């Protein structure tokens, strides 16, 4: 169907631009000059950003809620009709803006960051391909199109994590990421199939219209939502499938910023927010999500406390922030989750890019213990990074404050314990972020070999823009408490049906905010004392003192546990099947039949002794036997 909104059909341009960029840069990667690819790719993404902006306004101006643009029939087998269609509504347009906007900035940034890499062209090709898949993911009008993007971004992240393919560890990390995603994807595809059997369709509009009629808590819906959740858990790096994300930092830093902070990992959040109607019908799943989200948030935050690799710290913070979003989803506050997703996209991209510029400046050094005192050397990076840190720590009026505060409030509504746990996680986050900040920018420089310098403008400008967003992004959705009208949520509520809507009393809210702010201040001061006043240099992973500390710095040995639980047994099983069963049992059985027959054959041949008297005997024996036979039978 073609929507009545003017020019809305131009939506196909949005993914088309990056695809075009991918094809050009991909095919011409041996011909394009050094910067051409980067500029081209960035232009493409920027163009699709402008297009989505245009679409945003057209959608806004026209009172309509959504529009579906059908390109062609993708799979139509019998009663299974799956068109290749895009759905443009408030949720998808938001995601499109985030993806293309942040994506464009990161592309531009990469021009400077990847300047010296000899495979810069294929880098940009892959980045464009990623943007394309991500756009498919957010624009798809049914679950299967979403799944295309879903797997596409997984594959692109595989490519980009293993971008420096000479290093086996990077390749391993890439494979790990892809396989873990695939585990989630299996659940996801099964969920889709069940959806199809239930509603005879996988398109969002039809599924949701029909689902509205179902009664809550039906086991089938629960099963479906859980299966979809499995997919989301894999993609959004929740417990137990989160371990790939920290390893994914093997990729170039812009990749970490775009894929593993801003966009791809939030796909799970998007998908669940998109299916909010279904999830509202499955309270069990919602509770599971609360548990998962909270656990992940705190667990990852704790691990983040003792990480010394700048990107690893950010990675774990990403995991824990995603945990918060899951918490919000579990609480039924989908719009809050998406809001946090948005702000997080801003400040986490900012932080990663800042880290990238630091690493760039330090000549590839990523260990924060070897940094320090960079405040003077790279002021812009410092300021932007500071903005990001404040935002993620939830200091008002930075964007993180509004989004996180919203989630905490919802937690409090459902139960104070939740609130306390969530707050604890927030405090930990605050601590390790400031630890990072102090260690990197304060004190004196601990690495004398490198000569840190401010990054070129092509890298700093995106930082500045992002920092602006990180600072003021929160004002998109000012709660009524501060005289706002939470426009963002209202905007989204046209596409999402949240479970929780009621505003709580202003007094309690103020109380909560005050408490949290006090604690935050205390935490920041603690960090300051430890790392600036005493200028403590955190010990390496090896020489950690207490068992607990050791455990933390070894990430609770989760990787080792997984290795022993899954990887080693799998290899062993493979060897066992092949060396024991295939070689020693199945194959020999067949051969043995042949061998036995031929042995028997030799015996029979030996009967033929060539001696006459034996032949006579044999003949007479035969005759006598037959005589007896016929006389008794």
């Amino acid at each position, binding site marked *: 169907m073609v929507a009545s909104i003017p020019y809305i059909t131009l939506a196909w341009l949005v993914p088309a631009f990056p695809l075009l960029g991918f094809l050009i840069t991909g095919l011409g990667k041996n011909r394009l000059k050094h910067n051409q690819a980067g500029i081209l790719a960035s232009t493409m993404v920027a163009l699709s950003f402008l297009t989505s902006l245009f679409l945003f306004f057209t959608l806004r101006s026209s009172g309509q809620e959504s529009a579906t643009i059908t390109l062609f029939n993708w799979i139509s087998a019998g009663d299974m009709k799956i068109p290749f269609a895009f759905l443009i509504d408030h949720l998808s347009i938001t995601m499109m803006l985030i993806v293309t906007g942040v994506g464009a900035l990161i592309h531009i940034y990469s021009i400077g960051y990847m300047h010296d890499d000899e495979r810069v062209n294929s880098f940009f090709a892959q980045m464009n391909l990623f943007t394309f898949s991500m756009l498919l993911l957010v624009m798809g009008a049914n679950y299967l199109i979403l799944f295309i993007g879903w797997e596409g971004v997984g594959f692109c992240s595989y490519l980009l994590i293993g971008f420096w393919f000479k290093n086996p560890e990077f390749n391993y990390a890439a494979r790990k990421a892809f396989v873990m995603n695939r585990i989630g994807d299996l659940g996801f595809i099964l969920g889709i199939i069940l959806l199809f059997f239930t509603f005879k369709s996988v398109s969002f509009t039809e599924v949701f219209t029909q689902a509205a009629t179902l009664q809550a808590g039906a086991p089938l819906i629960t099963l479906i939502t859980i299966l979809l959740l499995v997919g989301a858990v894999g993609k959004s790096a929740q417990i137990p499938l989160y371990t790939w994300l920290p390893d994914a930092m093997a990729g170039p830093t812009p990749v970490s910023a775009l894929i593993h902070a801003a966009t791809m990992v939030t796909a799970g959040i998007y998908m669940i927010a998109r299916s909010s109607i279904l999830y509202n019908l499955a309270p069990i799943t919602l509770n599971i999500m609360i548990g998962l989200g909270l656990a992940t948030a705190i667990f990852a935050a704790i691990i983040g406390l003792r990480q010394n690799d700048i990107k690893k710290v950010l990675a774990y913070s990403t995991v824990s922030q995603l945990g918060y979003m899951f918490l919000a989803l579990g609480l039924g506050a989908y719009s809050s989750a998406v809001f946090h997703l948005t702000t997080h996209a801003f400040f986490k991209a900012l932080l990663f890019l800042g880290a990238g510029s630091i690493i760039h400046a330090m000549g590839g050094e990523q260990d924060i213990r070897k940094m320090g005192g960079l405040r003077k050397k790279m002021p812009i990076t410092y300021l932007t990074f500071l903005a990001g840190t404040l935002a993620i720590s939830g200091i008002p009026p930075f964007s993180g404050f509004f989004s996180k505060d919203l989630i905490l409030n919802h937690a409090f509504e459902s139960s104070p314990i939740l609130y306390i746990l969530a707050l604890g996680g927030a405090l930990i986050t605050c601590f390790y972020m400031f630890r990072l900040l102090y260690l990197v920018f304060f004190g004196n420089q601990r690495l004398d070999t490198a000569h840190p310098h401010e990054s070129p403008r092509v890298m700093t400008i995106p930082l500045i823009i992002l920092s602006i967003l990180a600072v003021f992004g929160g004002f998109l959705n000012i709660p009524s408490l501060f005289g706002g009208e939470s426009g963002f949520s209202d905007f989204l509520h046209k596409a999402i049906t949240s479970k929780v809507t009621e505003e709580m009393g202003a007094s309690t809210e103020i109380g909560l905010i005050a408490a949290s702010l006090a604690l935050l201040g205390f935490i920041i001061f603690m960090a300051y004392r430890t790392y600036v006043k005493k200028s403590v240099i955190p010990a390496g992973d090896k020489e950690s003192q207490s068992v607990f500390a050791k455990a933390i710095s070894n990430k609770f040995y989760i990787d080792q546990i997984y290795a022993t639980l899954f990887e080693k047994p799998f290899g062993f099983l493979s060897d066992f099947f092949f060396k024991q069963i295939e070689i020693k049992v199945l194959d020999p059985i067949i051969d043995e039949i042949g061998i036995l027959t031929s042995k028997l054959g030799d015996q029979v041949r030996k009967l033929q002794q060539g001696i006459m008297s034996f*032949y006579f005997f044999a003949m007479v024996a035969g005759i006598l036997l*037959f005589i007896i036979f016929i006389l008794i039978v």
Partner: protein
Amino acid sequence: MSAIILLTVFGIIVLYLGFAENKTILAPVAITGLVISMVLSIKDWGLGSKYFHDMMIIDNFSIAFNVSMLIITILIFLFGINYYKRMEHHVAEQYALMIFALTGAFLMTSFSNLIMLFLGIEILSIPLYILAGGKKSSFRSNEASFKYFLLGSFATAFFLFGIALVYGASATFYLPEIKNYIAQFNGHLPPMLMVGLLFILIGVAFKVAVAPFHFWSPDVYEGSPTLVTAFMATVVKTAGFAAFYRLLGMGLLPLPGPLEKTLWVMTMLSLLVGNLAALNQTNFKRLLAYSAIVHTGFMMLAMLSQHDSSASVLLYYTFVYSLATVPLFIIFIHMKRASNGLEELSIFRGLYKQKPWMAVFMTILLMSLAGLPPTAGFLAKYRVFILSISRGYLAISIFAIIMAIIGIYYYFYVLREAFSESNDPNPIEITKLNAALIIVCGVAVLLLGLFVWTVPI
């Protein structure tokens, strides 16, 4: 009848030609004789003429078999032209004896009286005893004829004893009367008659080398001159089965239960023993001997699943089998000469390298023996299975199918040799005539496989 007489006459003529020390004319004369008698016997088609107080009935059945045997014999004689080049003396006798054996075979196809059957068998056998020992100086040939003779006459003794017992019981040698005589017992025969019939069957079974009376055949096949082996493997077997079928069809069917069971046992034994013994066989002639035993089993299967079309299936099977066997012996003899006298399977190595077309035709022939489409051998087996399965002998058919699989193994083992490299290839030279024979047979096997040919008998 005239065919038989003329054949005898020609045998004597060839014998006398032997005095003129001119080998070149022997084969042509003999072959003309065969051709003429073929024409004569075809002339009797459909007449169903009876001779000697109905002791001989020349009906379509016998004519069909005679003609097929004549064709095979002609092929063998053509092969003989080149084969007997080296032999200085007594070439005439070879041809003559084979012709005489053929007359015996004719009797076997057309008897309706046990005396005639006996005479036929003996007239067929006695020349063969001599032919088997054709190479006087060679031990193996000598041994072959020796074993063949002793075991043969031993079996004949039992055969005769059987006839005597049957005669004692039924007071006649005529098959139809014997049939009526048996019918009156409706199944429960007196032991003497039963034993007699058993002995008669065993006598014939010995001739067609059915296990467990097959012991002579591998040794004799191996020892005899290759051409004689070819003759035995094809014509003699055909004649034997013609006689066997006639015996059952005219006289003994429906067989009394015990006897039928005996024959089934023999069938399965032949399939099993032949295959297993052939499995690791290294001597090609012995291999073919054992495989011949297996084919005997299949023919028995066709014969025992008593059906109107059994006769034509039997005819088809024997003819196709002979048609594939003769050229194989021709190829074999060339490889043997190329590898100066060896008979191992390894002599076939490098055939594909030297004479690709020969290898190809060998493939076709072996496929036919193994029973793979699109050759005639497949169709023959297919029709046999159709008979047995439609008669409901499922278990035995499955058994036979498994046996066919084993058979494929050793045939393709030989084939693999032919298509693998040889380390010291000697030149293979082959005359145009033999090449033509191989090609004609191969093509015939293919065509018979593609376009079914059934004779209403």
